[in-house]
């Protein structure tokens, strides 16, 4: 199968769907002729012009609010926000309006809006360009929250986002954007709420690791290392954290008896806490050891490389965490 970068895969989904659906338009800073800070819309302006690829003023709250009204009146906005940090200025519109209008209108209004852009720590981006706030959106009823970790998933999940009728946060970890992987030419969707077994454990598999976004690759690296010592681990990538496919996680836990969640973001009230809470609620008897979380440090993200590196899990610390879990 041909290989595409993560960004190219998502762009293909967007291009294909825009060709089919004239109600889709994209807003953002530099997503017109420039083609997007991350090349998310490269080539599309020439095809569709300014009404459908709309360069905006620096008014994140404003264009999210504008897109809210647009979604209520027959079009399908895509907000290309560049860095998730920027749209914290639009949190009022997101939480009070976007997430609530379907419910408050008793289902008579739809809210088909997709917000997409980068998240994550890396590249000395520092604290205003490293945000990872997906646990916040998972806490709020009304959002679907998508964290693709491969090009294949990026295309399929983006298609689903663009065809659904709900608000979707489509979050692309910056360290994944240029990674490559096989992506079919055909049209396909990946349903929300279906985890992917990123590494299937065999019979003697002794632990389940749930990893998110860029942590999937790092966890797989760690597992390759452990495999050399004959240690077999199952790795699950939830792909969407709202809805969250707890069943797949708990089935694996049932088999392995041990659970670690590897998540770059802050631990308190994060998605790892939610997974651990579901495990101890629904699968206490399966637990042969405490459920462990490996998270990013609980501090803003610093700039300097050695500081930045100290903030987040890597293959070495993940491997150590798995070994610790097995020793419990």
């Amino acid at each position, binding site marked *: 199968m041909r290989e595409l970068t993560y960004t190219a895969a998502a762009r293909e989904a967007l291009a294909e769907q825009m060709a089919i659906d004239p109600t889709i338009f994209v807003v953002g800073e530099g997503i017109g002729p420039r083609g997007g800070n991350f090349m998310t819309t490269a080539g599309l302006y020439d095809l569709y012009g300014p009404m459908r690829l709309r360069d*905006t003023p620096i008014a994140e709250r404003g264009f999210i609010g504008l897109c809210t009204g647009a979604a209520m009146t027959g079009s399908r906005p895509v907000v290309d926000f560049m860095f998730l940090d920027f749209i914290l200025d639009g949190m*009022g519109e997101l939480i009070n309006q976007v997430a609530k209008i379907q419910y408050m209108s008793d289902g008579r209004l739809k809210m088909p809006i997709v917000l997409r852009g980068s998240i994550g720590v890396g590249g000395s981006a520092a604290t205003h360009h490293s945000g990872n706030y997906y646990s916040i959106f998972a806490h709020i009823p009304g959002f679907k929250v998508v964290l693709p970790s491969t090009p294949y998933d990026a295309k399929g999940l983006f298609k689903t986002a663009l065809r659904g*009728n709900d608000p979707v946060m489509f979050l692309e970890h910056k360290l994944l954007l240029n990674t490559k992987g096989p992506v079919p030419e055909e049209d396909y969707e990946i349903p929300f709420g279906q985890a992917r077994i990123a590494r299937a454990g065999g019979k003697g598999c002794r632990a389940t690791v749930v990893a998110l976004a860029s942590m999937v690759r790092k966890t797989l690296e760690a597992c390759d290392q452990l495999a050399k010592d004959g240690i077999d681990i199952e790795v699950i990538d939830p792909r969407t954290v709202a809805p969250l496919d707890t069943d797949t996680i708990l089935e694996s836990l049932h088999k392995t008896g041990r659970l670690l969640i590897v998540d770059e973001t802050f631990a308190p009230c994060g998605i790892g806490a939610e997974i651990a809470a579901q495990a101890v609620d629904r699968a206490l008897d399966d637990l042969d050891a405490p459920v462990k979380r490996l998270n990013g440090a609980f501090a803003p993200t610093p700039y300097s490389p050695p500081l930045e590196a100290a903030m987040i899990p890597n293959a070495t610390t993940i491997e150590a965490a798995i070994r610790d879990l097995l020793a419990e």
Partner: protein
Amino acid sequence: MTQTTDKLSKDQLLSLYRTMAVIRRTEEQLARAHQAGLIHGACHTYVGEEAVATGVCANLRTDDAVFSTHRGHGHALAKGVSPAALMAELFGRATGVSRGRGGSMHLFAPEVGMMGTSGIVGPCILQAAGAGYSFKLLNTDRVGVAFFGDGASNNGAFHEGLNMASIWKLPVLFICENNLYATEISINQSAGNPNVAERAVAYNIPGVQVDGNDVLKVYEAAREATLRARSGAGPTLIECRTYRTRAHAEGMRDAGYRSAEEVDAWKARDPLKLLAAQLPAADVAAIEAEVKAQVDAAYDFARNSPYPDPATATTHVFAD
């Protein structure tokens, strides 16, 4: 009193009066209902400001989209929501316009282009711009309308919304209901420039200040703005100087921050009275009688409607 009077037929004038009367009598009934404990949450009445919603909405079609505020009963009624569905909503009933989910500050009637009132000050401005964006993208001649208060005009949403509507020439009416106060804070205290219409300079769009108690003046300004919007020429900011003659919300005190003289002066310029003075008394009386019957019936309907079933309390969070 205004030149435009001649332009409108008697029927049109009576129709404007009727809309204002529906708003006024419904609000008065709601105020009584609030005192009687029938309204569970907040209730901000539109009494004294009827001319604004009436004059603007008389220019709109059902498929134009109105986005409103916490003080939205008048907008909803003028856009075509029935007093019965409005009252039932404030009484928390399943027959309410939002099926009891919203109350006063979350009125949704997309069927008639009433796209929502809001408990948060500001978003309506942006959402109306978004409706304008949709309507332009979809190649229709529909318009988006935002009603908002003087208080909202100091919010960042005003700046970002008007600017975007300007640069993209969106078909939008920005109707500022400048009733001189935000709760108890005077516009002179909260705005460097209390003449909201003058701020249109900052966006390079037309800004008009009108007597918001004169429904014909409002009608005329909104007519021009609507034609302008439908023709693709872009948005207009209309500042309607008006006044709420009741407290900010029912049950709140209404003292200390404004004088009785000020309130009385505005009451003397009651929008219904101003228009009635130009109409045959018998016609006005007939309309008032009809409206009274309608509002009474609405009240009975609302009071006798069932509450929503708690089993439905969590439906429709998502469409898919």
